[in-house]
């Protein structure tokens, strides 16, 4: 029998269907793995009892011949999703001990599809960060290490716990959320597949809001096929989220295994961002070659406003966050600190409850929305956002997909960028433009750095064209043949 924690979702589905193993067995294997890997700090809350109960229920369903799309598969949920009866913290002291009475739409769909709930994964506090170092519950460790030293590395963020857990074989897959790159960047750092669907594909209902116009849930898996399988159970119009889309949902797996002959792949030179690791640029060139070898045509496209994406993002996202996080006021749930009067209660609660990065973004957001600065910052940023979206639309009139690096560097060490805020924010420079435009993007592990760390390439397509995204990603994955695993020194 194969190592049960090493299976892909597709393999696990086949094994369960053929009775090679039970959900209980596969779940127990993962619970054991989680216990053995607590030093990674990938989970805020482990739910082994719930997982076993889910598994037993799944095995019973399977015996009755009635199984869902994710039935019996041990999966972890980012702790930004509210989960009924399970502490949901957003990795913030503010929500420590908060147990929702409701289940987010996305996790609810996955529960309905039969998933086994392993627990809640760590993240940057309120999904604000690119290294998972801002979590109130401590940093997450990347299971990968450089071949040249033994320093602990960050898994990326904000979905760092999910990325680390998937890479370390603690779960078959995990959910992430992506606001400016929070799925794709940690996926690249941890050598896994991370996919952000089109804005509106997944309901945001029940996901703790960071930046409403950007937040989008997506799958984090070890293969492109697994991402397609999992996404199928996450998406769909939700009347409780009016920004969710009523567009028909295609069969995402149907495009896998098809060739890409004749597809045009856009290569935007503007993504040769200064300071990008030359190894990554080389990998990007290699990626172009792989796709050309597979019959696609590489086309230069120009996205000249790319350089304005990051500044616009760091105005829009904090602006929305400053308002979205106003509800954490100590009045109804979560942390409440004492004070002599109302203002003090607010101040003390929010000072104690929020970490530095969250406070920084609330301050930035409050500033850019305030009287006298609104037009200069917020309105201008929205205009930039529109121009970036237009630029993508124009590009997609001639190309079917765009290939870029997913990140400007490989995973860095803990503390390495703590004093370098701009350096930290630059992590999102490749992923933010698609976020601003609401486009689907996927990070596919494509190679190793000379120091033995995984590097991802990003594909972007036009809105609601996840089919093409998966189709090209599948070919990229096959061509790259990425089989390296963390913990194996090169």
């Amino acid at each position, binding site marked *: 029998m194969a190592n049960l924690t090493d299976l892909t979702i597709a393999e696990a589905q086949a094994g369960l269907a053929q009775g090679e193993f039970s959900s209980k067995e596969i779940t127990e294997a993962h619970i054991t793995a989680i216990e053995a890997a607590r030093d990674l700090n990938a989970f805020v809350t482990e739910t082994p009892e719930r997982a076993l109960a889910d598994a037993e229920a799944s095995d019973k369903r399977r015996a009755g011949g009635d199984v869902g799309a994710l039935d019996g598969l041990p999966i972890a949920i980012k702790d930004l999703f509210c989960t009924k009866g399970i502490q949901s913290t957003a990795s913030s002291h503010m929500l420590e001990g908060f147990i*929702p009475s409701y289940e987010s739409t996305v996790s609810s769909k996955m529960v309905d599809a039969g998933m086994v709930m392993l627990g809640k994964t760590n993240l940057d506090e309120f999904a604000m960060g690119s290294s998972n170092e801002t979590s109130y519950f401590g940093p997450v460790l990347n299971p990968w290490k450089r071949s040249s030293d033994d320093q602990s590395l960050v898994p990326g963020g904000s979905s760092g716990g999910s990325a680390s857990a998937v890479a370390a074989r603690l779960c078959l897959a995990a959910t992430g959320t992506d606001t400016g790159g929070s799925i794709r960047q940690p996926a690249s750092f941890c050598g896994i597949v991370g996919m952000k669907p089109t804005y509106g594909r997944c309901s945001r209902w029940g996901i703790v*809001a960071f930046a409403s116009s950007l937040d989008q849930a997506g799958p984090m898996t070890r293969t492109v096929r697994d991402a397609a399988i999992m996404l199928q159970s996450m998406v769909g119009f939700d*009347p*409780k*989220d*009016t*920004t969710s889309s009523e567009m028909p949902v295609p069969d995402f797996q149907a495009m896998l295994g098809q060739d890409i002959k004749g597809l045009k792949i856009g290569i935007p030179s503007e993504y040769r961002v200064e300071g990008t690791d030359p190894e990554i640029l080389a990998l990007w060139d290699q990626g172009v070659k792989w796709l050309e070898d597979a019959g696609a045509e590489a086309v230069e496209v120009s996205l000249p406003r790319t350089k304005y994406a990051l500044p616009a993002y760091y105005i829009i996202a904090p602006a929305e966050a400053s308002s979205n996080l*106003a509800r954490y006021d100590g009045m109804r*749930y979560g942390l409440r600190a004492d004070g002599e009067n109302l203002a003090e209660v607010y101040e003390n609660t929010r000072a104690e409850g929020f970490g530095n990065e969250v406070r920084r973004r609330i301050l930035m957001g409050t500033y850019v929305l305030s009287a006298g600065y609104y037009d200069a910052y917020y309105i201008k940023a929205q205009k930039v956002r529109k121009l970036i979206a237009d630029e993508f639309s124009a590009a997609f009139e001639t190309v079917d997909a765009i290939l870029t690096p997913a990140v400007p560097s490989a995973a860095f060490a803990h503390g390495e960028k703590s004093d370098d805020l701009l350096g930290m924010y630059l992590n999102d420079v490749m992923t933010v433009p698609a976020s601003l435009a609401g486009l689907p993007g996927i990070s596919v592990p494509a190679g190793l750095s000379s120091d033995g760390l995984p590097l991802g390439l990003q594909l972007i397509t036009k809105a609601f064209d996840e089919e093409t995204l998966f189709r090209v990603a599948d070919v990229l994955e096959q061509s790259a043949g990425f089989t390296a695993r963390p913990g194996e020194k090169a």
Partner: protein
Amino acid sequence: MTEKNMIAGRTGDWEVVIGLEVHAQVISQAKLFSGAGTSFGAEPNEHVSLVDAAMPGMLPVINKVAIEQAVRTGLGIKAQINRFSVFDRKNYFYPDLPQGYQITQFGDPIVGAGEIIIDMKDGESRTVGITRIHLEQDAGKSIHDMDPSSTYVDLNRSGITLMEIVSDPDLRSADEAAAYLTKLRAILRYLGTCDGNMEQGSMRCDANVSVRKLGDELGTRCEIKNVNSIRFAAQAIEYEARRQIEVIEGGGTIAQQTRLFDANKGVTRSMRSKEEAHDYRYFPDPDLLPVNLSEEFVEEIRRTLPELPDDKKRRLVDKLGLSGYDADVLVAERATAEYFEAAAEGQDAKTVANWVTSDLFGYLNKEDLDIADSPVAAKQLGALVGLISDGTISGRIARDVFTEMCATSKDPAVVVEEKGLKQISDSGELEGIVDEAIAKGPAQVEQYKSGNEKIIGWFVGQVMQATKGEANPQMVNEILRKKLSE
């Protein structure tokens, strides 16, 4: 002499400039962005959904009824309906504002400019401009008097739909402001978009007041917040105008302020100055898409608009022949107008109007009842007028019947039957009774024949005595004159 609508000061006459912002609670089963209920008088925090309590991850979903009601209101005041409108967040912290922001419409409201015709007591009419109507969420309620050291919060109102109806600064006196509020409330009630119950808080008013010498630039205004009756609004405006005049004439200047009206003392008091005003950091709510209304949507609502007070008044005067005054009284409240029209159906409208405005209103006032609680149903009052018209009872008997109807809610025909109040209109029967009366008074007959026509009253008295007042007086008169002249 002070000009009409002007306030006399020591330095001359002052013009008062008033603009009103009315918050009207939209009639709807559900709140603006959540499915929670809206009924008044529920236990604290009974009508609170996860969205209203701003739990993590909750999202607002626009209630379509609220949109319809705002459009209906806009059409009712002949306003521009904005086919594109946007919901914004108004950010501030308060315990009864769970989200930390109010969802409202700042830059692109759903309804643009419109107008309301106000009717003054002297019979004059004036047109008041409406700047805009926008939709917004109400906040919850902070309760400070339940505990000496704690404040309690009731979120039942949190998220309830309000329309903010903003007038132009067109009003020039407290009386005009009161007339405006009265007319606006009537229109809202006709439209069925707000119940207008100010004492229950479903209609509240902020008044912007400034004063100036005629022809001067607008003065600095003060805003009086949250006045909850029309009478108080008039009192507050009158007080505030005189206060401002006093300050200016005393050499001072008016500071832009938000003020509160103390109904017990009849004064306004400073709440906060402009410097203390919040920076609300408005921005479009990213959780909500802009509202795009189709032309068909608007036209469908226009088609179902009820007849509004101004049109109804015109019809009552032109078609039913009522006096302008009666028509004004009858259309002022939707409930009254509906009562009148139901009562007048198939009856003489002027007679019905008299009965409604005198006898019925008299009774309701005395008993402190709303017309909705009238013991006499509209159809019953109409039937009573019908009995007078067809000669079944006299107008005088009708008053007794009405009194009995008020006490018992019985149909007038039943009361007439039970009490035997039916007039004797049978000429054969009446002739016999008249003959007996003539036989009793030979002396009176002589007097009549010698020219004293007034003596006929004596015979009528005899007939009425004999019939216990049930004889049809008109017929008795006719028969008497005929027989006495023989």
